[in-house]
């Protein structure tokens, strides 16, 4: 479970207490801190708050008991705090939307269980939020991009059974088809889909787009799951991670090309004359930029690097050669 960032103290306590009570075996100080995104000091503060709470007349038997015993959190409380609160519409929306999106995935064994679970979820919502739940079921839709069920199936097997696979991968940034062995760890996204893997070609952990995997076969070797790999943290990581050798790029976009700014991670987007926009970004490879320039024609201008313009001319000339017959 991912930690919940900066949950207000009372909400945290109201979910932390029942969790500790129902998970007595797992509730170590470390685990509780990780799940609820708090420091050990904060946890100890919460526990010392709990022990001064109780029921009037606040005689010793009326108080909540909470302590740490050999690294474990122990909480004894009268039954009023032992169940979590109902879900708010926002929480239920999150779960419903993601659940429905998942249920539609190919290669997902959980799909059936999800369908029946989502039906039961309606019960979890507060009665005066029932309208909201119905509305969101009817009026909020998540669509996932399709991905090849065959490739997804191979990735799933490989991740679950820790099998190294050999893939043919089209690198968009460099415009080349590569062959490499990877240890896949997690598929994430909503379409496009990505797979995070330890890549033996580069020796680094890399993110690959599932639709750019042309083929995948088991390499006949197993791998060990890297220690400390936390799926939810990985999926939150930005797709593009700048590095020192990156090229600094400045582009100017016509209003009709404004979508480029929406799709491309950038450092700065500034409006300039005539409704145009100046976009500053860094790129590890420039092959994709050259193709982008070719696509957009006079809707885009290069400020830097100057070499890009020459590269566009070269690419266009090479492409034109195809048409000479």
């Amino acid at each position, binding site marked *: 479970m991912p930690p919940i960032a900066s949950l207000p103290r009372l909400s945290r306590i109201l979910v932390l207490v029942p969790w500790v009570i129902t998970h007595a075996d797992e509730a170590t100080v470390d685990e509780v801190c990780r799940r609820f995104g708090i420091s050990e000091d904060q946890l100890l503060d919460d526990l010392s708050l709990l022990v001064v709470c109780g029921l009037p007349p606040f005689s010793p038997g009326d108080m909540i008991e909470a302590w740490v015993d050999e690294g474990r959190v122990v909480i004894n409380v009268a039954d009023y705090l032992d169940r*979590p609160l*109902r879900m708010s519409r926002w929480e239920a929306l999150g779960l419903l939307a993601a659940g429905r999106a998942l249920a539609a995935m190919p290669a*997902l064994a959980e799909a059936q269980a999800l369908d029946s679970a989502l039906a039961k979820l309606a019960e979890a919502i507060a009665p005066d939020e029932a309208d909201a739940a119905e509305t969101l079921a009817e009026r909020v839709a998540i669509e996932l991009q399709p991905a090849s069920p065959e490739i997804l199936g191979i990735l799933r097997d490989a991740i679950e059974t820790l099998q190294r696979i050999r893939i043919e991968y089209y690198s968009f940034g460099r415009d080349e088809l590569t062959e490499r062995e990877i240890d896949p760890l997690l598929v994430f996204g*909503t379409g496009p889909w990505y797979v995070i893997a330890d890549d033996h070609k580069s020796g680094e952990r890399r993110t690959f787009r599932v639709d750019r995997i042309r083929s995948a076969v088991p390499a006949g070797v197993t791998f060990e799951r890297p220690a400390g790999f936390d*799926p939810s943290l990985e999926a939150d990581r930005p797709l593009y991670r700048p590095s020192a050798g990156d090229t600094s790029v400045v582009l100017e976009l016509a209003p009709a090309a404004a979508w480029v700014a929406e799709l491309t991670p950038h450092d700065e987007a500034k409006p300039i004359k005539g409704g145009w926009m100046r976009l500053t970004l860094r790129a590890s490879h420039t092959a994709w930029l050259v193709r982008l320039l070719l696509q957009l*024609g006079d809707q885009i201008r290069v400020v830097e690097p100057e070499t890009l313009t020459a590269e566009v001319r070269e690419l266009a000339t090479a492409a034109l050669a195809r048409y000479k017959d």
Partner: protein
Amino acid sequence: MDKTERQINLIGLLMSSERPVLGTRIRDALYADATSAESFKRMFERDKDDLRALGIRIEIEPIGAWDEGYAIHRDEVTLPSLDLTPAEHAALMLASQAWGEGTLGPVSPRIAGMKLSAAGGADLPSPWILPHVDLRSPQLAALFDAILRRKRVTFRYRSSGAAAPEDRTVEPHALRFRSAWYLSGLDVGRGEQRLFKLDRIEGAARIAAGAKPDFERAPPAPVAWPADAEADVQARVAFTPQIAFLVEQRAGAHRDTGRGRKRADGRVDVIVPVPDAERFVRWVLGFGGDAEVIEPVSLREKTIERLRAAAERV
């Protein structure tokens, strides 16, 4: 007494009591700090608001014929047992992890998973797949609220290709996520069903004043995605093998098996629907020398024209 301490005690007092609790008893037990009846009332009201925001309603109910007291109904405010099978529980836990750091409304939806987990049941082993729906759009909560209450919304919208944003007033019908969030609804100024990309809304969406709905409930109209437009034209494009597999994944595209052969140079022909000529040419140009439009001739000519312009670019 510290505020959080007092609020926990208030929850305890009202949840564990079988009958409504008199205000005076609440004051004596928990609000000894209050120096006057007025200040007790103020503190108590604030606590009630705080708890209501978390979903804990404090009800006012009669005690006997003359008095009134306060109550929290435990079964109404706490999560009931959902009778989930282990497989269902695991499936919901998987769904609950599907969120980025964003928040939707006042609370992160990830807490739904925490609540499920806190109600008992095992956690799920590390998942192989995480759908990652972005909830960071600041507009989501307001627009959902407007859909729910059937209120018109007004926002500044920069439509694709427009130099300047314009104000739009919309009867919001549905929210859809397809790589990005979209609002579908009736554009009141234009009298048409439209689709708005949330990323293109500038500033905050303003909800019309008043509690009364502004429009009738209607089933959400089917949304015509721009890319789904009917295509009368089909193009034949020759691709190098390193690209062909990518293109074949595109909706409506298929390898030309009619001819059943590769070209002598190893390239393969793919038939691609063309809903819009300009978009198509741009899409093909994105493949550089890996794509050649074979037919129709009009699209081939258009592509060549653009390549010539680019080859002379300064």
